[in-house]
């Protein structure tokens, strides 16, 4: 504990990482070595992305003492809207497979989701309808609306470049690009640590010892490198690798060629969202207001904070991220279906809560929620790997959720 304090690392975070390690090694042993493989971890990271993106927004929603039950349905609706946008509207404007289709779809989806979120937020903040009710209504309304967009027809396939957002072969950036990103990430970590240290030194505040600083940077850099090595150890399937090689005009050798996947685009999107949202929560005025509203809404209002506007914006942000998650999901399925995102609201809320977000409001971290999403997804895909059937999977996930919150409650009481 003394060491952790010196390093200024949150003990909760260590607890979650340990839980994740136990789950991973447990499944690895139970599945006779099938869990901790580059292939499985790569797929796991892709499957976590959409939930992780939405969990970032849910943290802020729950921190302000609200809840959003509608994210799964909104994802379904925006997904269908994306389908129609790409299959019917854009082709008339600039034809199929236009390079602008992908960015246009992203903007459209985030705009759609954001507006829906702002609408929910306005009802909650200005008409004082409880968020539970507004978003429970939203859960029904938007699922129905998702069906209505095409009267239930699935729209497929999606634009080729857009599919990259969902991962898969198109969405694997390859080994070199992965290393570039890893180096940028390490540099960003080092620079942000140094800047923080310099700022504290300017005011003569206590600094953590240099060895601790170096150790934290070293650990962070080592994790980035480890993750990069893992995604680069997962080769493209031989058929696709062969097509790529032959497209380059080379001969496919006897033993095949090892072409690594590298990072998946949706995972990079999720990590970027996590970084940006952490910045918003910790370094920006908006985040400070969100947390103080959660801590004491009356005090926040008496301090002159426009609490209603902030609440509405939090829901707008949640909607915007749901729109982004809709892109990831739709691209991954390569189809817009009206059932996309069913039950996602529960996984997103569970991820946030397992990640240490208190339902009483005022407490929560983005990193925690993303780790929570990873823990939930690890449990699920581990059980799939072991051939556990769906009903039992749900039972286990439900029990783990309840147990995790109980343990968290014990931990909180102990540190009081």
């Amino acid at each position, binding site marked *: 504990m003394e060491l952790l304090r010196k390093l200024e690392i949150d003990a909760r975070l260590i607890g979650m990482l340990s839980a994740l390690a136990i789950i991973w090694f447990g499944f690895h042993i139970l599945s006779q070595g099938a869990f901790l493989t580059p292939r499985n971890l790569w797929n796991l990271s892709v499957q976590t992305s959409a939930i992780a993106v939405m969990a970032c927004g849910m943290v802020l929603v729950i921190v302000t003492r609200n809840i959003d039950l509608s994210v799964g349905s909104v994802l379904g609706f925006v997904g269908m809207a994306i389908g129609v946008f790409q299959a019917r509207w854009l082709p008339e404007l600039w034809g199929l497979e236009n390079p602008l289709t992908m960015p246009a779809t992203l903007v459209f989806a985030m705009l759609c989701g954001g507006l829906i979120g702002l609408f929910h937020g306005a009802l909650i903040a200005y008409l004082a309808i409880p968020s539970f009710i507004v978003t429970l209504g939203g859960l029904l309304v938007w699922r129905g609306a998702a069906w209505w967009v095409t009267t239930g027809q699935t729209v497929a396939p999606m634009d080729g470049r857009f599919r990259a957002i969902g991962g898969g072969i198109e969405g694997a950036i390859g080994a070199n690009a992965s290393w570039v990103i890893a180096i940028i990430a390490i540099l960003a970590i080092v620079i942000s640590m140094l800047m923080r240290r310099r*700022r504290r030194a300017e005011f003569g505040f206590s600094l953590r010892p240099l060895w601790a600083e170096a150790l934290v940077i070293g650990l962070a850099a080592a994790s980035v490198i480890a993750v990069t090595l893992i995604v680069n150890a997962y080769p493209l399937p031989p058929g696709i690798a062969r097509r790529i090689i032959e497209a380059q005009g080379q001969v496919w050798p006897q033993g095949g060629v090892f072409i690594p996947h590298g990072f998946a685009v949706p995972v990079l999107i999720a990590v970027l969202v996590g970084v940006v949202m952490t910045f918003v929560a*910790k370094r920006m005025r908006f985040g*400070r207001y969100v947390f*103080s509203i959660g801590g004491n809404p009356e*005090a926040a209002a*008496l*301090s*002159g904070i426009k609490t209603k506007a902030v609440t509405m914006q939090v829901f707008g942000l949640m909607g915007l991220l749901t729109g982004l998650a809709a892109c990831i999901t739709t691209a991954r399925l390569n189809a817009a279906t009206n059932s996309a995102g069913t039950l996602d609201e529960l996984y997103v809320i569970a991820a946030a809560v397992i990640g240490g977000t208190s339902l009483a409001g*005022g407490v929560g971290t983005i990193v925690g929620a993303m780790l929570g999403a990873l823990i939930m997804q690890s449990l699920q895909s581990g059980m799939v790997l072991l051939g556990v059937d769906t009903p039992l999977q749900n039972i286990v996930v439900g029990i783990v959720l309840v147990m995790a919150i109980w343990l968290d409650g014990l931990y909180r009481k102990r540190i009081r």
Partner: protein
Amino acid sequence: MAETRTPLIEMRSISIAFGGIKAVEEASVDLYPGEVVGLLGHNGAGKSTLIKILSGAYRADSGEIHVDGQKAEIASPRDAKAHGIETIYQTLALADNVDAAANIFLGREKLTRWGTLDDAAMESETRKVMARLNPHFRRFNEPVSALSGGQRQSVAIARAIHFNARVLIMDEPTAALGPAETAQVGELVKQLKAEGIGIFLISHDLHDVFELADRIAVMKNGKVVGTARIGDVTRDEVLGMIIGGKCPPGAIPGPGASP
């Protein structure tokens, strides 16, 4: 006190009703620079409500507020603060989950030139203001929920005095404090008064009020019973004002005085 001076604050004929119940009715009080005015009355007499109108938490149904003789529109806490009116609420109104600096600067954060929160600068100023109020305070990086009652009080006071307040409203400032801390608040009140700050002191505790206030205003059932200089009335007379609404000869009767 020279009554020819312009009062710092003048609340004239303030009324407010909640759902048909008149919480404050035709109440008028004033406050001069460097003066402490004690607001007395039972629970529910309307003193907290009256003061929340001045601090911008409530909006009066009728009546006027004048600051430095000029009519002021106070529609929100932000407006009140713009006039230099700061409030220490009875509940302290702290966000428990964030640290002292975040509370002191809540709504008035210091920003870096990139528009991000300048936590280091805010912590630095917090250390300075807390050194004056509570020299033993060290827990700058903990949420205020982890602090003791007295420490929380210091944070609430620091928030009120850090931004060059001209008028300070203290709602039951010593209700949750021990004797030593109460004495400390008393010292602070005297110090602020010497700096020319006008203070509204709301209290149940007659002893505190007689110790610190220059004048008192007593409220009952939402109306002002009367106002008086501390030297012109006895404690028993003030108790009579609070309980019976009887205005003694030394006091100036208000609309709430019983005949």
